[in-house]
């Protein structure tokens, strides 16, 4: 275990119309984390019809929450649909896809590189990511 008691869980679920699994996955993860000693206020959840501004605002809020930490850990669980641009793995830009249409507009997606750039963590705060998409 880390020596720090600072820990925070960020749970993002971005179901599209008819998706039921993601909300159940998020609830199960929250329950599992409570069982692992996380307090209720150490689990931040974002769920529903998401878009880029919502997810970015959520990540900014998380960044503010940990900004003063000298060390600690952040766990990020993402349950979403995914997409990518590019024709081969070497040039692919993968991301989260929020829309239920094929119209990948600016607000309907977030590249992983943008997510990591938005979630700003202090140098000694470790990020663990579990993507399910």
């Amino acid at each position, binding site marked *: 275990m880390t020596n720090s008691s600072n820990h925070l869980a960020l749970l993002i679920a971005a179901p599209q119309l008819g998706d039921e699994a993601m909300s159940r996955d998020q609830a199960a993860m929250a329950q599992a984390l409570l069982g692992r*000693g996380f307090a209720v206020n150490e689990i931040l959840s974002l769920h529903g019809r998401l878009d880029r501004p919502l997810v970015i605002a959520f990540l900014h809020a998380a960044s503010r929450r940990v900004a003063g930490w000298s060390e600690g850990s952040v766990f990020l669980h993402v349950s979403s649909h995914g997409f990518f641009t590019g024709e081969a793995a070497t040039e692919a830009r993968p991301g989260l896809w929020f829309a239920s249409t094929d119209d990948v507009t600016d607000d309907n997606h977030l590249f992983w590189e943008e997510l990591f750039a938005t979630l700003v963590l202090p140098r000694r705060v470790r990020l*663990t990511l579990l993507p399910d998409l």
Partner: protein
Amino acid sequence: MKAQPGTELACRAHNLPPDHPAQPRGVISYFATAALAEAATLGDWLARIEALVQFEVEANLLPAFYRPELCVLGDRSHAAPGKATSNSSNS
């Protein structure tokens, strides 16, 4: 999931099959949440996920082609989120 370099890009995440008793759940999240309780490290967490998957494949609860191909990108010895509940050693 991790695609091998040069292979065709595709999304390979599944939900549990319709006749699975826990559905609707995503395969990765289902096994990850089930395996987390006693995991000490990220490597231990992955091993427990793989063991649960193997058990369900052998029990015919999960078709083999639903088996997730997971890996730890980073230090497998890092602690899993939170604290293990029992029967595991801390890193």
